[in-house]
């Protein structure tokens, strides 16, 4: 048993799996972080991802093009994100209620349409995006394959994390977006259009969440199945908190979740004599332990999930 686990081959494959499992979480996590830093809590991330997954499948199936599929996935994510944006920004409603309603709504809608789409027809799996090997870097032992033998989505993610980190740390716009989430009244007084910025944040939320869902269909599976996000939207919410509202932190937290899930399924396959349920708990136990480490240091934006109404007290 142990000699099966403690090999280079096992760890190389495990690290690859960890990144694969983490990528949709990172996209959704970054999207969620962007919205939360601007004061909008989107519990409906699960719905955003599910809509992205379904629309990307439908788009790619009808057009026969993966790029059009991706575009449809992004638009699907934006559509759901905008429902939340209108409810929570323009109408200043309770963001938790809106998010939960969105999750239930999107689950119903996508299941309904996927049945119509599949009715009486057999269909084939889509050919998915292929991997691009980066020569040189990919021959690094252990992590080379995991980081540099992946698809275009994964590479774009590296760029995105760097861009977002610089955006928040070095640019005036980045600071303005954070001001909107911390103290919208002060931001408003300083001439920042609070609501406009929040809409932009929700647009980014929809785009990234949509890509996260589309990734599962266009890169990993080639099919849409009902409720296929299976809680990844909620895990992304946790990754943001665990990552202390920073892009790199969110990336790391998503890797922990993805890694724990990849590990438990691998331990089952090699036949570790533990019940499957005990192994399935692993990601959540790791989360709890990790959360213990961040007690007392709240990085939550001050005005998170508080609607900003101009002129009111």
């Amino acid at each position, binding site marked *: 048993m142990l000699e*099966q686990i403690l090999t280079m*081959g*096992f760890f190389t*494959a495990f690290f690859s*799996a960890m990144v*694969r*499992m983490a990528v*949709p979480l990172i996209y959704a996590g970054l999207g969620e972080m962007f919205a939360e830093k601007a004061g909008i809590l989107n519990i409906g991330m699960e719905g955003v991802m599910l809509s992205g997954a379904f629309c990307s499948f439908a788009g790619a199936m009808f057009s026969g093009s993966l790029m059009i599929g991706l575009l449809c996935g992004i638009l699907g994510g934006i559509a759901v994100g905008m429902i939340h944006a209108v*409810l929570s920004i323009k*109408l200043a*409603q309770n963001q938790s*209620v*809106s998010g939960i*309603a*969105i999750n*239930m*709504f999107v*689950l*119903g*809608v996508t*299941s*309904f349409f996927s*049945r119509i789409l*599949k*009715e009486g027809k*057999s*269909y*084939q*799996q889509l050919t998915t995006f292929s991997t691009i090997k980066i020569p040189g870097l990919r021959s690094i032992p252990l992590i080379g394959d995991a980081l540099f033998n992946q698809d275009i989505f994964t590479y774009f993610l590296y760029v995105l994390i760097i861009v977002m980190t610089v955006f928040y740390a070095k640019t005036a716009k980045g600071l303005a977006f954070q001001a909107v989430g911390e103290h919208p009244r002060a931001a408003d007084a300083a001439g920042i259009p609070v609501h406009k910025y929040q809409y932009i944040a929700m647009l980014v939320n929809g785009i990234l969440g949509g890509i996260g869902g589309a990734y*599962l269909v266009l890169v*990993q*599976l*080639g*099919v849409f*199945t*009902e*409720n*296929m996000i*299976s*809680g990844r939207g909620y895990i992304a919410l946790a990754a943001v908190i665990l990552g202390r509202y920073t892009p790199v932190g969110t990336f790391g937290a998503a890797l922990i979740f993805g890694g724990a*899930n*990849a590990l438990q*399924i*691998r331990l*089952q*396959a*090699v*036949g570790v*004599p533990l*019940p*499957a*349920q005990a192994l*399935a708990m692993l990601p959540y136990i790791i989360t709890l332990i990790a959360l213990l480490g961040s007690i007392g240091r709240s990085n939550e934006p001050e005005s998170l999930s508080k609607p900003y109404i101009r002129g009111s007290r």
Partner: protein
Amino acid sequence: MKKLVAMALSLTLAVSMLTACGGTKETKAETSAETTAETSGETTAAADGESLKVALCVTGAVNDMGFCQSAYEGLVLLEEKYGAEIAYTENLQAADMAAAFTDYAANGYDIVIGHGFQFGDPALEVGAQYPDTTFICTEAAAASDNVASYVMSCEQGGYIEGMLAASMTKSNKIGFIGPIEGASLIKIMNGFEDGAKSINPDIEVQTAWTGSFTDTALAKEAAQAMIDSGVDFIAHDANECGNGAIAAAQEAGIYATGDSYDQHELAPETVLTSSMYNVPLVIESAYLDVVNGTFKGEVKYLGMAEGVVEMAPYYDMESAIPEDVRTMIDEKIEAIKSGEFVVPLDENIRK
């Protein structure tokens, strides 16, 4: 403005209730109205001249294109073929099952069918109060004078898949992926292992449970983990989320088998065959037992002999499977059908 929000939100909730979780009972008035309208024209007499009243209870929607729909199709078959008077209740939660059963029994239904193992206990409870009504549960273990369980011998399909896997593998490592550990799913996994070991006792069978019926990406990751460690044949009983397992097999260029319905189209060069379960036939056979007086209050197993469990055709993959393997599998299926060979039934998880 506030009103608009309230309206939008309540609309959102209403739509999602309708499509996602349901929760409300289909009213009988509505169903019987529509069924009588349909039956009036084409009623055919039942085998012995009288038509029975049959009710079906399911846990999901009758148009779910899966588990519940297959039972509903069986019910409609009873109406069309035997002129039975039918009614159904969908989206039943555990707490409402006994109430639904009582409702039907009190209204003079002759047969009340509960589709799913969850209906076992409510059937026993209500069955004791209404001895004149026959209660049938699928996939359950309940039995008394007027309660019977009709169980599909899905392990037979698993056994055949295991034989096929063990015959096709070159690495002598094969994998099986299940969704949530339930008796009716564990027995398929164990059947697969037994079938494989009947060909090669030393074969390594890797297994994993995704812990979810919907997490397709995790099912793929499980298959990928197995493929990374040398597995070159993947089978599953994970319904829709098994699509992920097939996707991994297709990418790796190895063979796989499907489950529940013919999954050939999904990956024509990967899926060799699929186990298919004929639920309408289970409903029909239960109905005929009651009509013909052959009903017994017992747990009844229906398998390949009754046509309830079937293997899908090989299609173009026939040439990929050596002729002697195909002959051997055909002979085994015949032996199972004739009762000459009995696939061991083991509903306990092995580790």
